[in-house]
């Protein structure tokens, strides 16, 4: 599923990474715990999280996540956007709950890591 489609169905707002809207996402991982994000063993996935802080961006970059979707109306700072842009990450903000987003994307065929 393309990031542009995910943006649409989750009622999301794109914060950076416009040039990557065409990218396909096949798998996703939902967590607020950054150490759990580091157990991701597949590149190019989508991370759904409520941990809206600079370290979430850094953790996602280390784990080679392609796109971060911040759930529950969490807002990103300019600093977070700058770090994300430096590392080619896409950032989306969505007002929906983590469970809601996860369920929606699962129904659309996005696969879990495990």
């Amino acid at each position: 599923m393309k990031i542009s489609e995910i943006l649409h169905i989750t009622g999301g707002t794109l914060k950076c990474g416009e040039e990557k809207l065409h990218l396909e996402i096949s798998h996703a991982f939902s967590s607020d715990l950054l150490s759990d994000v580091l157990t991701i063993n597949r590149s190019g996935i989508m991370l759904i999280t409520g941990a809206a802080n600079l370290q979430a961006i850094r953790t996602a970059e280390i784990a080679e996540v392609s796109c971060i979707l911040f759930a529950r109306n969490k807002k990103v700072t300019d600093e977070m956007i700058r770090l994300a842009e430096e590392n080619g990450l896409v950032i989306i903000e969505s007002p929906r709950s983590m469970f809601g987003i996860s369920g929606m994307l699962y129904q659309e065929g996005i696969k879990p890591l495990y």
Partner: protein
Amino acid sequence: MIRLEYMIEGGDFINAGNASSSLKKELRKLELDPALVRRIAVSTYEAEVNVVAHAYIGRMMAKIDNHSVNVIVTDEGPGIPDIDLAMQEGFSTASVRVREMGFGAGMGLANIKKNSDLFSITTELNIGTRLEMTWFRDHATKEADGII
């Protein structure tokens, strides 16, 4: 052999991850196997966050050659009273502030050990802690050395 060195400031959560991210970019430039680069990045990032979360100041020293990648992370800090306990998944002494950021789940040292080929940790109370991690660049080397 290539040597790289980075300083890590205790309590500096703004810059936490810069060292391991810089190291990761260097390893990518050297065209190391991507799966290996990921394991090194995860381990060094966890080690770096531990220094930021628990110590006053630290240093990350990497040595890269054709055979292996070796990273030593040392810090000046309170040290670890019980290493066995610290290695247990889920055990954490992280502050409220650290947990609010999404860290402090108590998985750090266990994740480091899981993601490195060789791992050692030494500590001295009120002095600091030293982690040493090694990765072998090819599977054959690991077998020849009797590691696996």
